[in-house]
C-alpha cells in the first residue's frame, strides 16, 4: 500500500525530470512518455483502491513518513497519509489527468516547445499528488507553492505573448498573497502547540491533541482565517479570485486540468482534510460559508456578460467552487467533496470540448463561432458531449451534477436563509449563461459570408474525442458512484427532499428556456441581444475588483517603493555617507586655516602652546 502511494507520487516527477533533461527537443516522445507515466499512476491508484477496499476495518487510515529535518523541538517530516479522501482525490487527479494528457498529445501537436509543456504538466501532477498525499502542514505548504509554480509556468507557456506572461505573474503573485496568510496561520498554530509542549506539524497528531487541549478561540479563529486565506488564494475565492479568468491565457488542456478539475479543488480538499480544525471554530466556518456564497453569485452574474467561451467556463468554475466552499462552510464536507468529484468530471468535459471547438474553429469568441451548417452536424461528438456537460452543470436530474448540487442545496437550506436564496439564484444564473452559450454556438446558423472559412469545421481526432466520451459517461453516471467508503468519515449525505428538487429543476429549466428564447433570433448585432440587461456596466467591469487591485498596486505599492528609494537616495546615501564625507571635508578645511604659512603665526602658536601646557600642569595646582 505505502510503496504504491510513493510510486504514484514519484512517477510524474521522474517523467518530468527525464523529459527536462532528454526529450525537450522531441515533443512526440515526450508526450507519449508523460501520458504513459500518468496512466501508470492511474493504475497504481486503482490498485491502491483495490487494496484499500480489501482492508477489513471500517475506515482505515494508513500513514508512513521519513524524517526530513530532524530538529529536536519541531521535527519536519515528509510522509504519506492514506484514507478515503486521499484515494478519491488520487483517482480524480490521475484519472482525469491521464485523459487530459492523452487529449493534449494531439491538441499541442503543432507546438514545437511541446516537450516543455509535458514536463511542466508532469511537474504539476507531481505537486498536486504531493498535496493530496501529504500528512503534515509543511509538506502541504511545499507542494502548495510547487503547484503555484507549475500553474505559473503553464499559464505563461506561450511566453512570447505579453498577456500570457502578465497573467502567469498575476496568478503566481495572487496565490502567493494567499500563501503568506497560510504560512502565518501554520506558524501561529505551531507556535501555540510548541508552547504547550507538542511542537508538531503532523495532521493526525494535531487532531489527537485537539481532543485533549483546547486552543483559545481568538487564536483558533486567526489560524483558521490564515489557512482559509491560503485556500482562497488557490481555489480563487472572493477576494483572491482575479487571477483565474486571466489564467485562460494558457493552453486549453491546462485550463481543463488545472483551472477546472484539480488545482483549484486543492483548496476545497485541504478544507476537508483540516475540517477537524475548522469545525472547532464556528465563527471561521461562517466566514467561509459567506465567502463561498458570495463568490458563487458574483461569478455567476459576471459569467452572463462574457463573450469568450473559456472566460465563461472559468467564471462558472469560480461559482461552482463557491458552492463547494459554501457546503464546507455549512459544516457538510460530504456534500462539498461529492460536488468536487462530479464538478471535476463535467467541467473537464466542458473545457475539453470547448478546446476541440477552438481547435477546429480557431476562435474563442462565442459570437463568431456560428458555422454555416451548424456545429451539430459538422462536429457531432463534441457537440453532444458539450450538451451532456451543460446538463450536468445546470443540475438536470439524470446527470451527476443534479445529485451533488442537490446535496449542497439541502445543506444550504439548514443554513442561513440568505445563503439559501443566493444558492438558488445561482442555479438560475448558471443555467442562463450556459443556455446563452449553447444557443449562440449550436443552435444559430450563420449565413453571413465572412465566416466562410468556418464551414470547414471537422470533427477532432480520436485522441481528443475518446476522453470526451469517457468524461461524458462519468458526468452522467457520476452521481451513482458509491462515495460512502471514501467520504464516510466526513459527514453524511442529506436526506433527499422532493420539494427542493422540484424548485431547483424548475429554476434550471426556466433559466435555459429564457436564454434560448432571447438569443434564438437571427439578428447579428450582439449589443441589441444583450441590451436588455440594465446593470451591464457593473458586470462587465467584474465588480471593479481588478481596478481596485490595480489602483492599490499603482498608488500604494509603487509609492511606498518610490518613497523608500527616495529615502535611500536622499537620506541614507546623501545624508549618511556623503554627509559624513562632507563633514570631514569641512573639518579639515577648518584645520587648514591654521596653516597660514606665516612664520610669525607659527611661532606665536608654538609659544601659546607652551604657555597653555605650563598653565595647566603647574599653575592650576594640578601637580
Amino acid at each position, binding site marked *: 500500500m505505502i510503496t504504491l502511494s510513493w510510486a504514484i507520487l514519484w512517477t510524474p516527477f521522474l517523467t518530468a525530470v527525464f523529459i527536462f533533461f532528454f526529450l525537450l527537443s522531441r515533443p512526440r516522445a515526450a508526450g507519449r512518455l508523460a501520458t504513459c507515466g500518468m496512466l501508470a499512476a492511474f493504475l497504481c491508484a486503482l490498485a491502491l483502491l483495490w487494496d484499500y477496499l480489501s482492508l477489513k476495518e471500517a475506515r482505515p487510515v494508513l500513514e508512513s513518513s521519513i524524517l526530513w529535518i530532524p530538529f529536536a523541538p519541531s521535527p519536519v517530516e515528509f510522509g504519506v497519509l492514506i484514507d478515503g479522501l486521499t484515494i478519491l482525490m488520487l483517482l480524480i487527479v490521475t484519472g482525469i489527468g491521464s485523459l487530459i494528457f492523452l487529449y493534449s498529445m494531439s491538441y499541442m501537436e503543432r507546438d514545437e516547445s511541446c516537450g516543455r509543456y509535458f514536463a511542466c504538466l508532469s511537474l504539476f501532477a507531481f505537486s498536486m499528488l504531493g498535496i493530496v498525499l501529504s500528512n503534515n502542514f509543511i509538506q502541504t505548504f511545499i507542494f502548495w507553492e510547487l503547484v503555484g509554480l507549475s500553474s505559473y509556468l503553464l499559464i505563461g507557456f506561450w511566453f512570447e505573448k505579453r498577456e500570457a506572461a502578465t497573467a502567469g505573474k498575476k496568478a503566481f503573485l495572487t496565490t502567493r*498573497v494567499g500563501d503568506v496568510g497560510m504560512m502565518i496561520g501554520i506558524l501561529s498554530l505551531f507556535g501555540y502547540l510548541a508552547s504547550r509542549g507538542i511542537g508538531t506539524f503532523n495532521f493526525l497528531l494535531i487532531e489527537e491533541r485537539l481532543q485533549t487541549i483546547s486552543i483559545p478561540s481568538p487564536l483558533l479563529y486567526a489560524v483558521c482565517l490564515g489557512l482559509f486565506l491560503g485556500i482562497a488564494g488557490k481555489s480563487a475565492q472572493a477576494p483572491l479570485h482575479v487571477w483565474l479568468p486571466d489564467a485562460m491565457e494558457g493552453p486549453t488542456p491546462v485550463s481543463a486540468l488545472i483551472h477546472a478539475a484539480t488545482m483549484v479543488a486543492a483548496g476545497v480538499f485541504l478544507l476537508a482534510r483540516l475540517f477537524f480544525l475548522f469545525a472547532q471554530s464556528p465563527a471561521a466556518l461562517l466566514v467561509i460559508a459567506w465567502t463561498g456564497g458570495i463568490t458563487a453569485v458574483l461569478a455567476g452574474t459576471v459569467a452572463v456578460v462574457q463573450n469568450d467561451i473559456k472566460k465563461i467556463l472559468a467564471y462558472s468554475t469560480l461559482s461552482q467552487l463557491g458552492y463547494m466552499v459554501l457546503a464546507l462552510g455549512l459544516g457538510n464536507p460530504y456534500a462539498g467533496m461529492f460536488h468536487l468529484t462530479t464538478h471535476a468530471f463535467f467541467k473537464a468535459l466542458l473545457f475539453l470540448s470547448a478546446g476541440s471547438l477552438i481547435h477546429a474553429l480557431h476562435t474563442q469568441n462565442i459570437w463568431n463561432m456560428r458555422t454555416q451548417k451548424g456545429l451539430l452536424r459538422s462536429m457531432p461528438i463534441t457537440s453532444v458531449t458539450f450538451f451532456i456537460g451543460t446538463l450536468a452543470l445546470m443540475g438536470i436530474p439524470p446527470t451527476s451534477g443534479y445529485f451533488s448540487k442537490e446535496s449542497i442545496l439541502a445543506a444550504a437550506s439548514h443554513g442561513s436563509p440568505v445563503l439559501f436564496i443566493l444558492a438558488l439564484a445561482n442555479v438560475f444564473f448558471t443555467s442562463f449563461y450556459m443556455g446563452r452559450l449553447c444557443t449562440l454556438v449550436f443552435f444559430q446558423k450563420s449565413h453571413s459570408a465572412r465566416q466562410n472559412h468556418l464551414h470547414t469545421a471537422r470533427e477532432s481526432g480520436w485522441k481528443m474525442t475518446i476522453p470526451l466520451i469517457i468524461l461524458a459517461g462519468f458526468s452522467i453516471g457520476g452521481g451513482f458512484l458509491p462515495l460512502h467508503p471514501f467520504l464516510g468519515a466526513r459527514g453524511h449525505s442529506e436526506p433527499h427532499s422532493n420539494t427542493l428538487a422540484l424548485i431547483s429543476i424548475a429554476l434550471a429549466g426556466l433559466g435555459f428556456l429564457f436564454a434560448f428564447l432571447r438569443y434564438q433570433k437571427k439578428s447579428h448585432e450582439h449589443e441589441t441581444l444583450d441590451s436588455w440587461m440594465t446593470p451591464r456596466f457593473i458586470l462587465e467591469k467584474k465588480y471593479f475588483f481588478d481596478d481596485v487591485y490595480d489602483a492599490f498596486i499603482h498608488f500604494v505599492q509603487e509609492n511606498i517603493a518610490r518613497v523608500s528609494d527616495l529615502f535611500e537616495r536622499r537620506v541614507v546615501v546623501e545624508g549618511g555617507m556623503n554627509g559624513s564625507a562632507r563633514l570631514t571635508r569641512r573639518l579639515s578645511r577648518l584645520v587648514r586655516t591654521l596653516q597660514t604659512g606665516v612664520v610669525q603665526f607659527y611661532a606665536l602658536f608654538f609659544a601659546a602652546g607652551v604657555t597653555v601646557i605650563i598653565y595647566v600642569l603647574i599653575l592650576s595646582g594640578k601637580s
Partner: protein
Amino acid sequence: MIFLLTWIPFVAAFLILLTPSEKKSALPIIAKTACLLTFLLTIGFLWRFRPDQPGYQFLIRIEWFPAFGIAYQAGLDGINMTLCLLHALVSLAGVFTAAREKKRLKEYLFFYLILVGAIYGVFTCLDLFFLYLFYETTLIPLYPMIGIWGSKNKEYGAMQLTLFITAGAALALFGILLLYQKTGFGTFDLIRITEHLKNAPFAAHDQNFLAALILIGFGVIASLWPLHSWSPIGYAAAPTSVSMLHAGVLKKMGPYLILRIALACLPAGMAHWSTLLAVLSGIGILYAGYAAISQKDLKFMVGFSSVSHMGYVLLGIAAMTVTSVSGAVLLMFSHGVMAAAMFAVIGFIYEQTHARGVFDFGGLGKKAPFISMSFIMASLASLGLPGFSNFVAELLIFIGSWEKSPVLVGLAVLGVLITAIYLLRAVQHVCYGEFNPKWNQLKDAVTWQEKFPFVLLLGALLLFGFWPQGLLRLIQPAVGAMLP
C-alpha cells in the same frame, strides 16, 4: 592541512605575477586550477567531517607571536565548514567569469586569488588576530578591482565600499582589543576565550558594550539596515566576478563573525540587543524589498534584494534559538550561492550587451534559453520556492524566531511576497514578451565553460533543497554547542 586552503590561492597569485606577460593563456589555467584544488580540498574536508564529534576538527596550531598570545590556529566546525563549502562553490564559479576579463587580465586574476585566499583565511581561522587580519586583507584587492574593472561610477562605488567596511572593521577591532584586554589572560585564541567566557562571563554592562561594538562593526558588511547603503552601490559598480564573490561570500563574513565572537562569547550582550537587532533586520527586509521594486537597474535590484535577504539572516541570529540560528547559517549558504548565480547571469548578459536595465531586454527566453532558464531558477530560489535550500532556511528561521517576535516574522513572511513581486517583474521583462531586435547578436551560453558556473551553483541549491539534512547535520550540533 587546513592552512593549504588559504595558501594555495596566495601561491597561485604570486605564480600569476611571475608568469611573463606573453604567456597570456597560462593565466586563466593557473587561476582555475587553484580554485579547483581548493574546491576539491573542501569537498575532501566535508567528506571526512564527522558531525557527531563535538568541538573543532582538523585543528592545527602554530605559535606565531607568543608575546601577545597570537597563534595561527585553524579548524573547522559545522558552521565554517558550510561557509567554506559556499566559498569553494562561489569562487570556482567566479573564476570562470573572471577568466573572461579582457582588460589587464594578469592583475585582475592576481587580485581575485588574493581575495579568495583571504576569505578562506577568515573562514578557517580560530584566532581573533588572524581572523581580523584576513578580514581586512580582503579590502586590499577589492578597491582596485572595483575601481579599475568596474562599470558605472566605479570610483565612487569602490571608495564607498572600502571606506564603509574599513570604518566598520575599525570599530570591530576596538571591540576585539577590549575583549582581549578584559579576558585578562592575554591570548587571542578564540577557543580558549569562548570556553573561559562560557563559565565566567563578563559583567552585564561590559557584555552590552562589547556586543554593540561587534554588532555595529560587522553589521556594516552584513548590511544591517542603517549601514547597508554601500552594498547596492558597490555591487552595481563592481565587475561580475567581484559582485559574485562579494554578495555571495564576503557579505556572509559579517554574520559569521557576529556568531563567532558576539553570540559565542557575549551571550548576555547579544540577548540585550536582540530585540533591537530583530527590529532593524525587520525594517531592513521591508525597506530593501520596496527599494528593490523601484530599481531600474538589475544589479541595483539584486543588491537591494541581498540586503533584504541578509535581514532574514540577522533576524534568525537575533532570535538566538538553535532552529533559527541554524536556519540563518543555512540561509547564508543558500543566499550566497543564489546571489552568485544571479550576478553571473546578469554579468553574462552585460558582457555582450553592456545593458542591464530591467526594461532593456525582452523575450530572451527564445534567444538565450539556457541563460534565461538559469535566471528564472535563480529568482525562484531567491523568492523562497520549495525545492531550493533558501525555502528550508527561511522556514527554519520563521519557526525558530516565531515565539520571540511573531510580528517581525509576519513582516518577514510579507517580505517574501515583496521579493516575489520585483523578481517576477524582472523575469517577465527580461525573459518573456516579444524579442527586442536590438540584441539579436546576443549568444546563449553554449560551451561547457560558460555553462559550468550555473550548473554548479543551481545544482548545489537543488541538492540541498531536496536534502537539507546534508548541511543541517553539520550546522545543528555546532550551533547547539555555541548557544547557551
